[in-house]
């Protein structure tokens, strides 16, 4: 790992100030991706701004019809939260299946979505539940937040402060994990909320995406039978030593049907 200047601000304002004007400064939340990246010398930040000391960024609250999760909230805390389990059990399930227990004790929701790894779990929930991402400078809709491979709508010095998830009438997340890394080879989050039905797929493509044909079919008939013949084209999907694009395309349908069945239970 190359050395860097380390900062541990106590407030969000201080963190933003430390990042401003430094092109090579990087924020760090849980560090579960950043530290391995630094160890492999794939990144060389001049400064690392550790968000771990900012108390205002962590925590879970229920506000009306929404569950609001602070950007620095650890996966383990989302997974075990009575508020999340009560309002959106599928979200608690998702958080409880990220990585392994030690990763869940460190990794955060803000870090996960800001990194936007194509195989991360949280983007599926954010898009399927049509969550709102709040930052120090404004708000992003779920559909406008995830831009592409490791790319989001965040600009330099913009930090995720919280994510607000509307409660779902029915929701479930099903993933086919890579047996070694536990990242999603394919993960499908299906949600039926006041705003309609959404189907979000992670792991399969370069970035989380929705399957409109499945959403339309499920809006008419929320059963796994309704989507059994809806195929996702393999074109443009990820292909690697773990799974071909064709296999991933097949898994999207399988995981989507399982998710609908789980949501109906």
């Amino acid at each position, binding site marked *: *790992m*190359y*050395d*860097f*200047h*380390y900062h*541990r601000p106590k407030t969000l304002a201080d963190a933003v100030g430390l990042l401003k004007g430094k092109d090579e400064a990087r924020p760090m939340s849980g*560090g*579960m991706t950043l*530290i*391995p990246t*630094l*160890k492999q010398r794939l990144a060389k930040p001049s400064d*690392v701004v*550790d968000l*771990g000391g900012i108390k205002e960024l962590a925590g879970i609250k229920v506000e009306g019809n929404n569950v609001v999760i602070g950007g620095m909230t650890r996966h*383990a805390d989302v997974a075990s939260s009575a508020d999340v389990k009560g309002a959106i059990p599928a979200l608690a399930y998702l958080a409880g299946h990220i*990585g*392994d*227990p*030690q*990763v869940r*004790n*460190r990794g955060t929701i803000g870090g996960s979505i800001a990194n936007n790894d194509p195989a991360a779990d949280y983007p599926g929930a954010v898009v399927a539940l049509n969550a709102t991402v709040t930052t120090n400078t404004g708000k992003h809709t779920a559909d406008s937040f995830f831009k592409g491979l490791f790319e989001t709508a965040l600009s330099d010095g913009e930090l995720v402060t919280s994510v607000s998830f509307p409660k779902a009438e029915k929701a479930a997340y099903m993933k086919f994990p890579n047996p*070694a*890394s*536990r990242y999603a080879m394919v993960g499908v989050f299906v949600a039926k909320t006041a705003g309609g039905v959404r189907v979000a797929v992670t792991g399969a493509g370069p970035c989380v995406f929705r399957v409109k044909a499945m959403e339309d079919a499920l809006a008419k008939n929320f059963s796994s039978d309704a989507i059994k013949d809806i195929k996702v084209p393999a074109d443009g999907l990820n292909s690697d030593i773990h799974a071909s694009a064709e296999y991933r395309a097949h898994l999207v349908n399988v995981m989507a049907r399982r998710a609908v069945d789980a949501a109906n239970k």
Partner: protein
Amino acid sequence: MTIPVAMTVNGKSVSGKVEARTLLVQFLREHLGMTGTHVGCDTSQCGACVVHVDGKSVKSCTMLAVQAEGAKVITIEGLAESAEKLHPMQEAFRENHALQCGFCTPGMVMSAIDMVKRHNYQLDEATVRRELEGNLCRCTGYHNIVKAILAAAPAMKSAGV
């Protein structure tokens, strides 16, 4: 550039000067000479480096020493009451032959203790196996590790640890 760092390790206050890039596991092993915590894969997969930071199990190869500033750290060296009296989890590993080469054992024991406490001393086999996702063992085939953890849960409860 060095940074002063201070924390509590196994109940004792320790301090030192580290680089920003010094990992917690390097601080423990190379600065404090506590080599019970192992480095296996160094890529957050294997769990040989698991320690407790403020009561939670973490992979110390994927945390900076400076991130543990002011924290309470427990390592494998901090578990046994004395050379004669092991922690119930260590004792269960010995009783159940839950190790062969022993390289993964420090991390296994630390993860197992966190697991037992989080599940309020009540575990079944499936839960133990799922909870061990972050710890790899290349000798035992896991069966005896699972047996040891299941045996240790009630023993920890009655010992009040």
